[in-house]
């Protein structure tokens, strides 16, 4: 279970542990200005650590060079185009980063008296209202830490609602094109899931939905536009079917970048919404986190929101509403991922209402432009308009012996992050492409050129693709080996 495995040293990046040399330090601690009692006079010896943790002994320059070297082996939005579908890899504004680092935001404690954090509470209160306005909801909690966390929170709210009416509904409906987190969140909220198939147009099959919706239906979870990038145009009928059965509608906000100021989940009939602030509201993805997944609800669900909410008192000061007897309880310590919420608020204020609408317009035009230009070289399983993203199929190339995975690896050689691949599951050899609004026509054209070249190579030079990537710090990695013989930490000693 350690890293003692043959390693080709050339070009590899050593572990920080490999730089260790006894006697070097990178820390600077305050002097001890109280009695310097030995540890065993403070704490009984039998509770003290017997073997020190084998952390490296390095000096500050080692630390800086090591992590700088690692950063150079990584690719972010600031490095280049990142059209990862359903992830909304838009530009992360720098001002927002600076804002979150202001001491008045970064160095405050959640248990400080509310009177000493009025600026923070005002920001949160305003953000609650802004997100409610964007989604067409009545109330918003900012607590959930991520999209999946928001889904689970929303489903727990739905469950509390049904239980408050004396109903034990057991099933959550999810389309077969849904994100994997949807059924996983439903399971964590105690529900079983029923999968609703898509019709030939890639939309929810209404007959299948009618057949599945019934007295045991707690909710339908839906992304709109869906993961194929298609707007569920019969959303009113979908809502009516679910509501008639006594169920509620959950909006997975992963794709909200298509609809800001253009259509609101609340107006479509949704009862609960989560937004991914790290997608739509531009907060950086951080290499996989942190994010934030606020949840908005209609009035009838407001009593069940998690504790606490941020409120504005009649006198104009801000505080907490903890007295919520019907609340599902606490779902996150303190006040959610506040540092992310600061960035999202800054983002909304950098655009305002007209700007947010323009964001979605540009995101959708960019996606349609790419779809049009790529539709000759790749199969388009669902032709027509798309919203902020679309899917292509690599079926044509697969017939030539080139899989979508291979083409994704080839794109790395062009300095482009590949699209999301093999999702949604209902399309063969899927590529799911989301350009976002912050990419220029020149960048999109360069991507098209690369994609067209890859399609050409699939026919005429398959070896180039099968050998790819050839410009990255490592070539294709053996994922099967990693899972079969797990090595999950280095040998630190």
């Amino acid at each position, binding site marked *: 279970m350690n890293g003692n495995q043959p390693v080709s040293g050339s070009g590899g990046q050593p572990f920080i542990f490999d730089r260790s040399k006894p006697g070097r330090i990178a820390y600077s601690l305050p002097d001890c200005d109280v009695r310097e009692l030995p*540890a065993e006079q403070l704490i009984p010896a039998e509770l003290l650590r017997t073997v020190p943790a084998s952390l490296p002994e390095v000096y500050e320059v080692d630390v800086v060079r090591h992590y700088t070297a690692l950063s150079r082996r990584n690719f972010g939005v600031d490095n280049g185009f990142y059209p990862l579908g359903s992830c909304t890899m838009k530009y992360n504004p720098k001002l927002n980063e600076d804002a979150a680092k202001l001491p008045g935001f970064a*160095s405050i404690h*959640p248990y400080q008296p509310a009177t000493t954090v009025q600026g923070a509470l005002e920001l949160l209160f305003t953000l609650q209202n802004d997100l409610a306005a964007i989604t067409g909801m009545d109330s918003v909690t900012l607590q959930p830490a991520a999209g999946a966390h928001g889904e689970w929170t929303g489903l727990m709210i739905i469950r509390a609602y049904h239980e408050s009416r004396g109903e034990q509904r057991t099933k959550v409906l999810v389309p077969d094109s849904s994100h994997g987190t949807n059924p996983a969140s439903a399971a964590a909220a105690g529900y079983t899931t029923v999968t609703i198939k898509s019709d030939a147009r890639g939309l929810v099959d209404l007959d299948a939905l009618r057949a599945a919706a019934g007295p045991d239906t707690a909710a339908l979870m839906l992304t709109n536009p869906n993961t194929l990038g298609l707007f569920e145009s019969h959303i009113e009928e979908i809502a009516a079917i679910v509501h008639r059965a006594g169920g509620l509608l959950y909006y997975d906000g992963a794709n909200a970048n298509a609809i800001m100021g253009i259509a609101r989940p609340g107006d479509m009939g949704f009862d609960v919404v989560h937004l991914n602030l790290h997608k739509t509201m531009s907060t950086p993805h951080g290499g996989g986190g942190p994010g934030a997944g606020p949840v908005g609800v209609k009035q009838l669900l407001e009593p069940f929101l998690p504790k606490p909410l941020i409120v504005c008192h009649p006198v104009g000061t801000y505080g907490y509403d903890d007295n919520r007897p019907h609340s599902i309880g606490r779902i996150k310590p303190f006040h959610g991922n506040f540092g992310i919420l600061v960035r999202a608020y800054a983002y909304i204020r950098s655009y305002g209402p007209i700007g947010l609408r323009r964001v979605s317009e540009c995101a959708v035009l960019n996606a349609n432009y790419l779809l049009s230009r790529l539709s000759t070289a790749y199969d388009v399983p669902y032709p027509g308009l798309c919203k902020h993203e679309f899917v292509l199929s690599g079926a044509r190339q697969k017939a030539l012996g080139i899989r979508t995975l291979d083409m994704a690896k080839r794109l790395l050689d062009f300095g482009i992050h590949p699209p999301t691949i093999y999702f949604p599951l209902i399309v063969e050899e899927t590529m799911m492409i989301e350009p976002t609004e912050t990419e220029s026509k020149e960048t999109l054209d360069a991507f098209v050129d690369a994609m067209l070249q890859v399609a050409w190579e699939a026919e005429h030079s398959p070896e180039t693709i099968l050998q790819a990537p050839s410009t990255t710090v490592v070539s294709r990695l053996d994922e099967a080996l990693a899972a079969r013989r797990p090595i999950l930490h280095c040998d630190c000693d």
Partner: protein
Amino acid sequence: MSSYRHRYLPMTDQDEADMLQTVGAASIDELFRDIPDAVRYRGTLPVSAQLDEPALWAHLRELAERNTDVSRCISFLGAGLYDHHIPAVIGHLISRSEFYTAYTPYQPEISQGELQAIFEFQSYICELTAMPVANASMYDGATALAEAGLLAAGAVRRKRLVVSRGVHPEARQLLATTARGIGLEIIEVDYIAANGSTNLELLEQTLNDQTAAVIIQSPNFFGCIERIADIATLAQAQGALLAVSVNPLSLGLLEPPGRLGADIVVGDAQPLGIPQSFGGPTCGFFAVAEPLMRRMPGRIVGQTVDRSGKRGFVLTLQAREQHIRREKATSNICSNQALLALCAAVYLSVMGKQGIQEAALLNARKAHFAASAAASVPGYSMPMAAPFFNEFVLRLPDKLSYAALSERLWSDGILAGYDLEQSYPELAGHMLLAVTEKRTRADIDRLLARLEEYA
């Protein structure tokens, strides 16, 4: 054509016209014709108004300045979130935008930096906790604790979790919400009033063959160090797992749970160089005994080789995860706190083998000095006798309320400790004080003088 221009948006009128022509649409509005009229939004969103960059910066600074940050006071407030020194290099390194503007490393060939950093983070957590396996991080310590409960229930196939009242109150609330989700039962076990640690007699009586796990925190919410090995023995006797939430900094000084019989070790990495940030984002860590490896929630990075045999890293054991298993996944989590795991990893690199021990000892020395001095101020006492790390409970004089004391301390620029009555009704007039390495002798003396004055 839109007259709207913005520094983040590259679309010019010419671009728009050219692109619409390629698409074959007359206007952008036409791209939305698949949205039924009845659900089209035609108004102007009632959101906050747009601000230009200078005005936005001024506004954000103004909001920030209306908060009293801990650099403008002397903080003795901890209770799960601590005022530690953050080495300067951390901010610079995690601000490398190759790190913070990337997503989950789905394409390992261009994500080796992030993957190796997480692999090293996992290594650090294994070293600190003395556990064989750790994951790539969780949202925070409290959600990690709740996931530990879920994991145990699934692994042991039992539905009852026994949790000590010494666990952070918010973590217990969160655990209760989580347990309700999948129908688990929670039983709380009290602490010994005179000692502050979990009542082992009560615990033993509570455990039976229905118990999936015992969940404790050490040092616990009162700062007290629990008898982890004894609790592990009690849990094992009933075939239950032991999950321990720890303060990672304390492990520079205290014997790690991995050597005391814990099956799952979780915690919040905030003390490791992560700003308090009003409570989030922080970073949870999650480590398990080897038999539980394939039941772990979240992302895990593993080492492998590329086609030429060169060492590299990938996300691994993904058969546990939601994008593969959907409703049968071990958890619904699909992210981790990569940037803050990086923060903790840089912190531990900076502190190193010696620094982590010195920092932990320094915390303990200052806290013990402050505790014994405060308890010797007439009227004040330390009601809980268990050994502690850097946080302790102080009982106030009978006639002095927490509210009165904290208000007067604040007017002197001192941020009081946590009011325990908020979460433990029986502890009215008890304050939880944290003393980190940042508190100077002068800070502590100032607190002591005020305590004496107000007694």
